[in-house]
């Protein structure tokens, strides 16, 4: 505290509280709507306090789904989302960490060429090469499979960069000592480098889990059966045209369920999340 200005402190708190309230408002309304019946929601204005149908609504979406839109149970969709998010997060970390190990700890022909090849992928989000990528995946027979959902998304330049940056800060003495003691590269990787990388891995895991869970365009194209929908796709499919036909109480319950895992990960693993976010981007 540099100087005491009570009115400014008051103003700061006022701005922050207003900010927090505005940011949280959609979430609150979503929660309230997920505890009401459809009739209560469409009677304008809808109540601002939670109703009594919470358990009922959540039980219905988890086990049966919405009848107006996609009929698949959301429980199944959550499972699909979880598999997708975990496969992408773990897969990305695994292939990136060995790739950066090769790039940092070996000298070999074409090293820079491979490095640039990975680097360039930073510039090509899925959205700009949708149709050709879709064609490749369908030619490989991966439509409606978990492999098709995850494999095309696990090559990641950001993760490779993060590990590369981290490996470059690991003291050379460690590798030297390992070599003198007669440890080969794989032994060094497994016994020295991997334990040192735990924090970086945790940070990346949070970021990539959220990335995987929140994927939209890719699962939209690659899944045709309701049993393969992810939770985010499921919500979209439940909304029919016209406000009145949509079963909003069920859509909102599904939205709450779809937000719960990634938000919980961010809040519970806040320290790693902040680290991962700020470090992967720099």
């Amino acid at each position: 505290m540099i100087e005491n200005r009570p009115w400014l402190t008051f103003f700061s708190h006022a701005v922050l509280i207003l900010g927090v309230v505005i940011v949280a408002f959609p979430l609150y309304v979503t929660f309230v709507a997920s505890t009401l019946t459809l009739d209560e929601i469409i009677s304008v204005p809808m109540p601002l306090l939670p109703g009594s149908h919470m358990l009922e609504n959540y039980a219905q979406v988890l086990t049966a789904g919405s009848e107006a839109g996609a009929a698949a149970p959301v429980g199944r969709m959550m499972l699909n989302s979880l598999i997708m998010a975990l496969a992408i997060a773990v897969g990305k970390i695994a292939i990136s960490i060995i790739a950066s190990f090769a790039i940092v700890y070996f000298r070999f022909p074409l090293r820079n060429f491979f490095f640039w090849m990975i680097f360039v992928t930073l510039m090509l989000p899925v959205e700009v090469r949708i149709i050709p990528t879709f064609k490749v995946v369908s030619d490989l027979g991966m439509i409606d499979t978990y492999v098709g959902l995850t494999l095309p998304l696990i090559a990641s330049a950001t993760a490779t960069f993060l590990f590369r940056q981290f490996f470059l800060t690991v003291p050379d003495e460690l590798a030297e000592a390992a070599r003198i003691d007669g440890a080969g590269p794989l032994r060094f990787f497994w016994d020295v480098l991997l334990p040192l990388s735990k924090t970086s891995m945790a940070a990346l895991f949070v970021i990539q889990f959220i990335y995987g869970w929140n994927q939209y365009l890719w699962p939209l194209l690659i899944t045709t059966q309701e049993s393969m929908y992810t939770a985010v796709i499921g919500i979209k499919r439940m909304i029919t045209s016209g406000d009145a036909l949509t079963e909003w109480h069920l859509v909102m319950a599904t939205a709450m369920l779809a937000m719960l895992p990634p938000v919980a990960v961010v809040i519970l693993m806040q320290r790693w999340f902040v680290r991962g976010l700020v470090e992967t981007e720099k």
Partner: protein
Amino acid sequence: MEKRVVFRSAWLPYALLAPQIAITIIFFFWPAGQAVWYSFQLQDAFGLKTQFVGLDNFRALFADPRYLASFKITALFSALVAGAGIVIALLLATMVDRVAKGALAYKTLLIWPYAVAPAVAGVLWAFLFAPSIGLVTYVLKKNGIDWNWVLQGDQAMLLVVIASTWKQISYNFLFFLAGLQSIPRSLIEAAAIDGAGPGRRFWTIVFPLLSPTTFFLMVVNIVYAFFDTFGVIDATTQGGPAGATNILVYKAYYDGVKAADLGGSSAQSAILMLIVITLTVVQFRFVERKVQY
């Protein structure tokens, strides 16, 4: 920066790189190459014959008023999302940096929207603003504002801007907070002793020192508005009404997937790739020269 100590092996580094390189080639380079290749071709209505047409697809695009309109809409949309997101996040980060009590609580309450999927963010806001049942719509109508984003283009744009900005504020906020916390307190204290008030300290010391962060966030936010907001658009306006929110990436998707115009959509993809590559190069050239403080 290079390592002094390295291992030697004729095959191991290639084996370690193999999974990543294989996936990169199959799912990045091959499709991206195909997108460029298709963009020079014309396919007949049944997809049976293709013909090499050179730059015709690109010429047709730039002669198409809807495509040019989509460019303008994307420019407006990304300027609004990046501008609003940066200003609001900077305000909140400055306030959190200022308060002594409750900073951690505020931080936690402000960062969670990062975890919400863009499509879900779109659904949440579309529900609040729904023409017949929305809560905000109700308040607006009480105040004599005729709100119906399903019919009115500028309101639809406002809706997607709000939803996209809301989701992005937490990201910008964290970067600004990290930037603010790395500014040496002694600088601020010196200015305070010299009699500079909080406003003056912000504009003459804090804001210039934050400029690398601001610039970085501008690029990231523009890329976000160009591509990641696909979910917001698809879950709410779907480019409508009458193309009022038809941003470039949505148009490329729609023309390719829904309208099955392979050549035209690929040409759009090729142009989008060019835009991303330019933005990435700008960002990296800048990061290399970035002043450390």
